[in-house]
């Protein structure tokens, strides 16, 4: 276990009833950079996210974050260690305005320890964070009720929620889904910026072309198993990966 290994997943397995969602998956996440996880629907990608972040308990295996074993720990404790995640199904706190959505993570023990600050500072910090991620302050966007925002903003809000936690790792669960080409293109600089700020990203994605622009390492999954790992070019060439996406190997 060297210093650059941020997250280590060892032989993780999970079955729900009779369904094997994840089978014996292992990988290592190094500090810096963006790791992509790809695979067809139902391959267990989101379950991996849930297993790592404590929302689901694995049947077997271990998850080690920064040298600490976090398998089976409750989600809020894992988040407090610096491991944040977005949710595939977007549900902001819709009765609250956008910047107030960020008050929640700003009140976590992690942020209170690192940022300190007096009562009342949180509002200003929240608005600043939102501005950084693209909520135009002049148009009063941060003050709009979260439930009324369009999808693009909601995705950014979700990222903002993670970002406000001051994390070391953010797991993005299909953050591009539902967005148009131009919206994705405008989000990519944001993701790169977050990465520059020192956050390591894991991106679970369906949109391969956009993902490959960002990542240097990719893991492919199918039926709960890891079927390939490497650079995007290597992985996409593998037979197993092609079969997973296309159904059967076709020789061109």
């Amino acid at each position, binding site marked *: 276990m060297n210093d650059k290994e941020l997250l280590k997943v060892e032989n993780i397995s999970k079955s729900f009833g009779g369904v094997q969602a994840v089978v014996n998956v292992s990988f290592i996440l190094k500090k810096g950079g963006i790791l992509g996880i790809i695979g067809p629907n139902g391959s267990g990608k989101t379950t991996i996210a849930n297993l790592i972040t404590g929302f689901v308990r694995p049947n077997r295996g271990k998850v080690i974050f920064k040298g600490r074993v976090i398998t089976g720990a*409750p989600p809020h404790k894992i988040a407090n260690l610096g491991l*944040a995640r977005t949710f595939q199904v977007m*549900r902001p706190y819709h*009765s*609250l305005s956008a910047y107030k959505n960020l008050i*929640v993570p700003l009140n976590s*023990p992690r942020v209170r320890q690192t940022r300190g600050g007096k009562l009342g500072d949180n509002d200003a910090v929240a608005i600043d964070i939102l501005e950084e991620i693209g909520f135009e302050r002049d148009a009063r966007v941060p003050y709009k009720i979260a439930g009324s925002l369009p999808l693009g903003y909601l995705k950014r809000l979700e990222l903002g929620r993670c970002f406000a*936690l001051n994390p070391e790792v953010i797991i993005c669960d299909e953050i591009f889904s539902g967005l148009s080409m131009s919206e994705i293109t405008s989000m990519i600089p944001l993701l790169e910026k977050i990465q520059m700020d020192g956050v390591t990203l894991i991106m679970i994605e369906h949109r391969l072309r956009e993902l490959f622009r960002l990542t240097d390492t990719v893991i492919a999954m199918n039926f709960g198993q890891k079927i390939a790992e490497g650079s995007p070019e290597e992985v996409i060439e593998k037979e197993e990966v092609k079969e997973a996406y296309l159904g059967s190997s076709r020789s061109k």
Partner: protein
Amino acid sequence: MSTDRRKKRLDRKLKAQSDGLYALSSWTAMGYLMFPRALLIFGLLLLPLFLDMYWQRVLCSAGVYALLALSFDFLAEYVGLVCLGGALFIGVGGYISGTLNMYLGWPPLFCIATATVTGAIISTLILLPSLRLRGIYFAIISFMFPMFAVYIIIALNVLGGTEGVSGLETLQNIWVEQYLILGIVLVSLFAIRRLVNEDTGLILRAIKDNDQAVKASGISITAYKIKALLIASLIGCFAGAYMSHLYGWLGISLFSMDFSILPIAAAVMGGMGSLTGPALGAFILTPLSETLRGFGQLRVVLYSLILIAFIIYKPEGIMNYIGRKYHQFEHWEKF
């Protein structure tokens, strides 16, 4: 309904003019905001002067129910916990306060203060095991416990058993009694209103909206639910402690279902979520229930029916309805 028109709702000009800081821009704007509040507050505070002795007592009871309705609304609409057992707070607070007074001889105000705090802790501990579960479990358990408390007290014949204990010291002065409860109602109302907009309150509302996201943001939702329960039970136990000294009597009726149901009816009728609505509802339903006392069981049937009617036909409640009419105007629009 005809399909070529629709109802359009717009904020009134005055509402937009008095939003946020702009409220201070003109007397009209300030008046617009202050008028309903002043009306209710001064109306409430002046009420004791116009009532005779009997109705003043009823006002005190109404205050107790108002506190319960307020805590029910807070827990249900701002935290997502539906507490069907307000009687638990009344009973616990009342019994502790009465016992302290009867067996230790402490003065009433002191008993009330102590009972409020200790009662809150005990009530929270009782409800604690259900906090990790789906909301329905909390609802069921909060519903069951007051009744169990009654069975236990009867069975073990402690603390007065079925007959209860009478002869507790009351607060002597009817004016003190009234203004104490009215004051606490207003203070609690203001306090909760502020709380739900402060950070802690925002987190509680977030928990109600989407607790998974809150967990993923590093917050322990059980810890916050406990905080919310403590706050609600402080209010409820105060009401209970006050109640036992109002009539100078302590008995199993402190756990009666009346204390669980009437506040809920008051909250639904008054307007869930508005915080003031439930209190208002209590001040309406309690005297109503009092006038029907002669009809025996019909009383309960009647306010159950009112409750059902409101839930089905006007779930937004009185306060929200009035608020909507006050803040917005509507007209039919052709399209």
